[in-house]
């Protein structure tokens, strides 16, 4: 297959400017980046380097001030809020540092959430959500609420939620940041196995160890790509 056809994410000279009072802040100055199907990419950088902004842009939570963003060859740089919501629902699975689960809802309901907004019927939703929870090893915890689950389990619920609508990419923002190192390793190995199963993963982390699981590590500084490292030995951390 031609490599161009496998391009999932394509950023062309992206810039993001925030207005802070009188001052303009360049969160991202000029970034161009391609990510291909079934790639495992880590984005690294100190705080203030623009990695959060980049992650929001890639996740279609925000739009760039300048430049073009193609997701699955579709230009998503100028979409409105509702169109972006649809793209997020269909194309992107989010995994956050703070899990971001609905506190009042059960694990099952949390995993169902993207399917509700996709307009999928109740019975199909339940079926798919159960399957996703089983695939992350929580088949026996479906009716537990987040406060009845451990940190690692909560993150598994979040991963199940990210997977449930078969997105093009899984976007993991510091997925181990709130976990102890043992649980963190478990979560990383789960993400790694997703990659092995053909998913495309974009990992945002400031930890070298975590980033070393990826095939390609992109280091940001001051809103620019400082360097790009091809990792010859991915999946190191979990093993």
């Amino acid at each position, binding site marked *: 297959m031609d490599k161009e056809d496998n391009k999932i994410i394509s950023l062309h000279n992206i810039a993001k400017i925030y207005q802070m009072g009188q001052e303009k802040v360049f969160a991202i100055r000029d970034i161009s980046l391609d990510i291909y199907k079934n790639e495992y990419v880590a984005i690294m950088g100190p705080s203030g380097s623009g990695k959060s902004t980049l992650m*929001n842009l890639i*996740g279609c*939570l*925000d739009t760039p001030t300048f430049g073009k963003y193609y997701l699955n060859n579709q230009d998503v740089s100028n979409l409105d*809020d*509702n169109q972006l*919501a*649809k793209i*997020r*629902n*269909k194309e992107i699975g*989010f995994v*956050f540092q703070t899990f*971001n*689960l*609905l*506190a*009042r809802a059960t694990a099952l309901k949390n995993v169902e*959430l*993207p399917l*509700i*907004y*996709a*307009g*999928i*019927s*109740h019975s199909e*939703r339940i079926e798919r959500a159960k399957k996703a929870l089983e695939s992350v090893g929580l088949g026996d915890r479906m009716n537990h609420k987040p406060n009845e689950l451990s940190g690692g389990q909560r993150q598994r619920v979040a991963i199940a*939620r990210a997977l449930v*609508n078969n997105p093009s990419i899984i976007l993991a923002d510091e997925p181990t940041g709130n976990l102890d190192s043992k649980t963190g390793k478990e979560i990383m190995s789960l993400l790694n196995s997703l990659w092995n199963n053909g998913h495309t993963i974009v990992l945002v982390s400031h930890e070298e160890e975590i980033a070393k699981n990826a095939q390609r590590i992109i280091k940001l500084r001051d809103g620019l790509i400082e360097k790009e490292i091809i990792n010859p030995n991915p999946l190191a951390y979990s093993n």
Partner: protein
Amino acid sequence: MKLSALIEILREVFDSLIANKLRSILSALGVVIGISFVILMGWALATLDLAFEKTLDIIGTDMIYVDKYDWSGGKSWKIIRQRKNITLRQAFELINRLQSAELAIPVSRKWMPNVKYKNEKFSGLITTGTTYEYALTPAGTINQGRFFSLFEDSYGMDVAVLGSKVAETMFPNDNPLGKIIKIENHNFVVIGVLDKKGVLFIDFIDNQIFIPLKSFISIYGEINRSIEIAIKSPRVEDLENVKSETIGLMREIRNLKPHQEDDFSINETEMFRSSIDNIATYIWSIGIGMTALSFIVGIIGIMNIMFVSVTERTKEIGIRKTVGAKKINILIQFIIEATLLCMIGAIVAFIICSIIIFIAAIVLQNIYPALDFVPKILPFKLFIISAVIAFIIGILAGIMPAIRAANLNPVDALRYEN
């Protein structure tokens, strides 16, 4: 938006309302009060309508009453007072000449007469002189004994028929029939008691003592007395005919020139409508003011609580948006929450008002038996009306917080920490 998403929203909203029970109850209080006003007002107006219908039944939609006085109160009191009395002679001339009427009965009243039974004096009564034909009008139906006869009538015998209230007051534990009462120190035999008639606006009719017109005139005299003539049309449709004939004859009898205005009034049930309307307007103007006020309070209360709810759930909104909720999904979620809160308020108000009205109706009837027609059960129509109002209030109160929620930026919302 798909139905499944809507059902999901309803479930979520219920969860959220139940999770914040006390807050939900307090914020719905304004709506409960507002809806209660609407229900009580509706009930008062419905009662008024019933009173009106009852009144019509007694006055008779097929009746007109020729009188010096105007029942509607629309005419200037000064002009009416200057009218000449309708004399007994004029009354009988009208009665004799009237062709189109089925019945025409002279009636004369003395307010506050001196009435005694066994040396006990009774106040607040009315002596009414009329003829035997009064028994044929809707107001003259007999409950006990009989009305006076043509014979007693034409000889002006000392017989009396009591209104139900009179019988109750004078003979609380006794059979009034055959008893001798004193009217202005004349002895009268009680021969009958009328059915209970009185309703809200014409409750005086149960306070009347009916005696033959001749006896009445012999006691009270003819001078300074204006006679009223009750006229019954054969059919309701003929009422206009009867009316125009009556007016023509009365003008002739009273020697009115063509340019002169009528110096008498033709009273009919229609006239009660205006006094009913006046009271209804009064109830409305008070009710509307209070209702509007409590609705404003209610809307502000719910709006406030919805703003709090939106703020508290910023993160939740962020999560929902991140996984694909569109603006409309969030908007509807919060509007439904506000609407449901109002609906629950409406249901609570309906239950409270049902209890209040049930008790009030019973208490009122005990104090004031003329109000026995007051409905104890709220009409279902009022339930529908209050539900619709609650729905509208919910939308009004929910729209602004919902818009704020829908417009939250997912990035900022996710970052929000309580």
